[in-house]
């Protein structure tokens, strides 16, 4: 753990960096308006996908979690902030750890426009029966009974109200994973062909991404077609597996075990022993300034040599895709919980351009410069509902979310802005993303290549930070709770004593089984599902999409000027 001394004077500039602002509307006359909408009568929000019009929140890229009041009862300080706001590892040149100590919002964004946080859904939730919600979450809105991807069918004849440029075609991502994974984690289409998608298991990121806080999730990866091909351009799962292992090595900066491989076949010294022999690992040994290069295999090797495909530590090759489904929480017959067939959201990311370290460095410094010059300027997000939004660092993001009938529809521009706050400008990300860098290692089940529907979170050991400390335990100790809103009473009762100290016996269990912390009881799962269903009925995502029944009491509605979090020095675990 490194603790860098940062003086108050330097914060103001350091802090501002994190928000990667490129400027937009800066309404400064809003502080007097109340952020709390009256949803006592749930009028559905009318969603227009065809324009970039912002209905509620010009700063929709700042998630609701950032408005958490860090000072709790008896002035106890809660620090969930360290999860995201930390010292990045190059080529993530963001160091936003000072955000742990000071809110430092802009004039506009001091107002918390995620007004759903303050809504009491008790009455609406009570109207939904257990059977009704279970039936709902168990009904897939992704795959139909003919094994077709429902949304892909719809996009094939794009509805006019989704077609931003009115060209009669869908120009965004068309879902093409069947979520049908084999014993190596590969997604197999009904015609028995690999779709290229591969599931991996990972230690879910902190707080919000734990099922106990609202949703089950998965993330799958796909490398570009050329990285799945041999020299002749033919698909080769073996080559694809090797390239995925190489990417894993570059992202985690660790050696990755592979099945015994004859390096001569690929003409790549995977184990870096100086000769082409048999290798059981991709050895991470990359320092090009010292002449230490690494190489992809197959067609990708050639393209890399031609500078058409790139390899560098901490970066994905261009063309990499991620698909992340956010789902309701289903329960098993025996009482455990599992991923629901119904998706709340389908989130997609594609790396559309390669940026060198120096470019990423300049981007981080350029934001610093911009924020110094324009301390009230909001970030201007580029994109639209059809093509997705870009984060400025090479990635395009697109999301689909349930319409009022529970079918997936594209997110509006304002809803899409929500992606950008977490997928840029944070110290915690690796090439703008979270999950793959947290992939389970090769010592785990199927070397970490499996989908959560194949095996759940139970039995997965607690991850550690590079400094050896336990990650989730640290979160519980720093935050004194299980999520940013501190409204997860189930985990609080399970892991904390009445005096606020953690229960060591529970922590001991957690070390060997993250499911012990991350999975809710079936009863809680039902309640969270119902709470979210109310948002779906209202289509009120632009006011917040966090599942809770009672109003959140730990969020600022307007963050006071110059408000400090009370955290004295940043917690950094690099």
């Amino acid at each position, binding site marked *: 753990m490194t603790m860098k001394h940062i003086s108050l004077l330097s914060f103001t500039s350091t802090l501002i960096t994190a928000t990667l602002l490129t*400027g937009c509307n800066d309404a400064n006359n809003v502080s007097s308006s109340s952020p709390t909408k009256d949803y006592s009568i749930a009028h559905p929000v009318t969603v227009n996908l065809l324009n970039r019009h912002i209905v509620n929140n010009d700063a929709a890229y700042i998630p609701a979690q950032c408005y958490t009041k860090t000072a709790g009862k008896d002035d106890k300080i809660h620090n969930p902030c360290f999860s995201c706001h930390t010292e990045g590892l190059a080529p993530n040149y963001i160091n936003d750890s000072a955000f742990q100590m000071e809110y430092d919002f802009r004039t506009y964004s001091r107002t918390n426009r995620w007004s759903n946080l303050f809504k009491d859904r008790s009455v609406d939730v009570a109207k939904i029966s257990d059977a009704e919600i279970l039936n709902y979450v168990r009904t897939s809105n992704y795959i139909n009974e003919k094994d077709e991807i429902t949304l892909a069918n719809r996009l094939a004849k794009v509805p006019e109200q989704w077609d931003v440029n009115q060209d009669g075609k869908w120009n965004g991502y068309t879902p093409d994973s069947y979520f049908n994974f084999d014993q190596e984690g590969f997604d197999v289409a009904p015609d028995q062909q690999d779709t290229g998608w591969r599931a991996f298991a990972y230690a879910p990121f902190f707080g919000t991404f734990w099922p106990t806080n609202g949703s089950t999730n998965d993330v799958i990866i796909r490398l570009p077609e050329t990285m799945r091909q041999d020299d002749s351009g033919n698909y080769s799962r073996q080559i694809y597996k090797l390239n995925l292992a190489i990417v894993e090595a570059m992202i985690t900066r660790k050696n990755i075990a592979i099945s015994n491989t004859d390096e001569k076949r690929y003409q790549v010294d995977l184990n870096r022993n100086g000769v082409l022999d048999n290798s059981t690992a991709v050895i991470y040994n990359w320092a090009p300034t010292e002449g230490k290069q690494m190489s992809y295999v197959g067609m990708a090797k050639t393209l890399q040599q031609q500078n058409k495909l790139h390899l560098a530590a901490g970066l994905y090759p261009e063309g990499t895709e991620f698909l992340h489904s956010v789902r309701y929480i289903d329960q098993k017959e025996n009482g455990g919980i599992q991923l629901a067939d119904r998706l709340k959201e389908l989130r997609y990311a594609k790396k559309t351009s390669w*940026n060198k370290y120096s470019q990423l460095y300049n981007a981080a410094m350029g934001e610093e410069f911009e924020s110094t010059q324009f*301390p009230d300027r909001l970030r201007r997000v580029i994109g639209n509902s059809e093509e997705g939004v870009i984060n400025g660092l090479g990635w395009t993001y697109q999301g689909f979310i349930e319409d009022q009938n529970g079918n997936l529809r594209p997110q509006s521009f304002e809803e899409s802005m929500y992606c950008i706050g977490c997928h840029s400008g944070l110290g915690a990300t690796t090439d703008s993303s979270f999950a793959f860098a947290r992939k389970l290692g090769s010592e785990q089940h199927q070397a970490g290549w499996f989908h959560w529907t194949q095996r759940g979170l139970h039995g997965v050991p607690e991850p550690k930070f590079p400094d050896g400390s336990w990650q989730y335990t640290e979160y519980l100790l720093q935050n004194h709770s299980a999520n940013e809103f501190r409204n997860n009473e189930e985990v609080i009762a399970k892991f904390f004593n009445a005096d606020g100290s953690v229960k060591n016996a529970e922590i001991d269990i957690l070390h060997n089984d993250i499911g012990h912390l991350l999975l809710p009881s079936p009863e809680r799962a039902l309640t969270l599902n119902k709470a979210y269903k109310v948002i779906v009925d209202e289509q009120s995502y632009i006011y917040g999409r966090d599942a809770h029944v009672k109003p959140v009491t730990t969020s600022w509605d307007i963050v006071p000027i110059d408000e400090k979090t009370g955290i004295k020095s940043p917690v950094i675990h690099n």
Partner: protein
Amino acid sequence: MKLKTLNLAMLMALSASTLSLTGCGGEDGVDGIDSSTGIGLTDIQVSFAPVALPVDSITKNDIQFTTEAEVTTATQTTNLQTVGYTKLIATGETNNGETFGAVKNYLGNPIQFADTSEYICNGTNDGVGSGLDHFSILEQGDNLYMISQFECQIGAMYMSKLDQDSTTGALSVAANSLKFIDQSPEFGGFVHCAGQTTPWNSHLGSEEYETDARMVEADADISGITGDKYYDETAMFWSTDSSKDDATKLNPYYYGWTPEVQVDGSTDAITYMKHYSMGRFSHELAYVMPDQKTVYLSDDGENVGLFMFVADTAGDLSVGTLYAAKWNQVSDAGLGNAVMTWIDLGHTDSASIRAILDPDTDITTNDAPKFSDIFATETPNPDGSCPTLTAVNTSAGNECLQVADINNDTFIDAADEVIASRLETRRYAAMQGATTEFRKEEGITFNARDNKLYVAMSEVARGMEDNMKNGAPETKYDLGGNNDIKLDYNKCGGVYELDLAADSTIGSAYVAYSMKGLIAGTPTDYSANAVLSANSCDVNGISMPDNVTFLEGSDVLVIGEDSSLHENNMMWSYNIKDKSLTRIFTTPLGAETTSPFWHKDVNGFSYMTTVTQHPDIGTVQNGETETGVIGTFNFN
């Protein structure tokens, strides 16, 4: 609207300076214009075909420019001139083995990152990052030169030659002509912003956002690293690789000055210098007046000043007297109206100040002063006053200061004062009573015919308000300061007009004695308008003006924007007589319009330069900052 009479203090201040209001500002020209500069005052009538407001994806994603100008001059009957936009060079392009925008270290080597990529001041492929801000066109000998300056925390400058088509006037960058300008003898460069082609055809640049030396002294660890990324980045200049762990060679007083590049037209030889004589602050632009002695200096930031330098010798900016402006408010209507007085900050020369920065004349040894060598300090009282020292409020906030014995001669005297006036110009000016409340002062330009100076103010906010921030009560920008400026908040900013006159005490024919609003942007609520909702200043008016350039002899003041409150940044032709505003250029989404500068007569052809900075990916310019000219006009 409240009108006030001048108070006694103001009258006294005015009387200290000997203004001569007669014989100036007339239509018949101004004394002191050197005919050798070629500035003619012939009357030119110009109007431009307007560019429509970009409202669709095609016009929003590309450069739009005026295609036609109606021109009348003394020698030309009214005629329509078809004009176009010509790109010159974009960052990342190579020429003569150099990459346009590549940044180098103090040894002249590229700065290499761990993936072996070299540092180019150019951001990501998506257009996020810093880049080129300004380029000048210089005529020397038989050659045309282009000097470009980059706005990264390690500054860079490049020179190239321009080819000019003798028939059409079309400009292009000459093959194999790009050269890196070595700035290392003057500690390297820093955040180069706007610039000017001086009357003697040199490039006068700027170093913006000088680092607060007090912060550095308080925060630097044993390796000189402060945690302030803006400052720490420059450590890479002093490194042999891309590491910035060692900032021991770095000193904040090395940056925040005015560089000048002169080119010898017969040998292409470059002379690089920094004018330490003109003070250290957040230089947006240094603008030389026709006397080649008077220079106006804008200070871009929060709670900043406005400065004027008067050189001893025309064409030599290395020796002279620096002055700071005081705003004596007369009216708070609109952008306000004030009598301007000038506070003498002392006379010195660049060599003397450089000797303070580098006593052993070895740039690699950090022997420049620390903040505490310049000032003694104490903690201000809660009301902003000081127990014993002088209270100020500048970009560094409310402080209590006293000049120290900087030169260690056991006396605190005029010699120390003049060092403080250059190394800590803004703080020192505030101590002398100057106004340090301006907010984001940007471009400067001059109208010789009417003897008026124009200064853009990106927004009227903070220090320029009366104990307010963006219209809400907030004392911190005025606490302990003069609170000279008391205006209403205007997030859309405006352009000021300054009347000039000869001042025999100051020894210049171009001393501003008044400053008042010329044109302001208008905050407009488009939130219910699905097409225009990304705008919040009137789309038919200016928003957050940045660089400005006046077409000599005409009524045309061109105003460029750097605004988040217009979805597409625009350039406007403002007619100072009939007050009409014509949109003549729009940048693609994400881009700022920097560097507009009229070159009225380049071998008989006229151009206006532009830089389209940081366009979005997906635009036609696709993320790359590019230089270009609008033309060819004929104003002769």
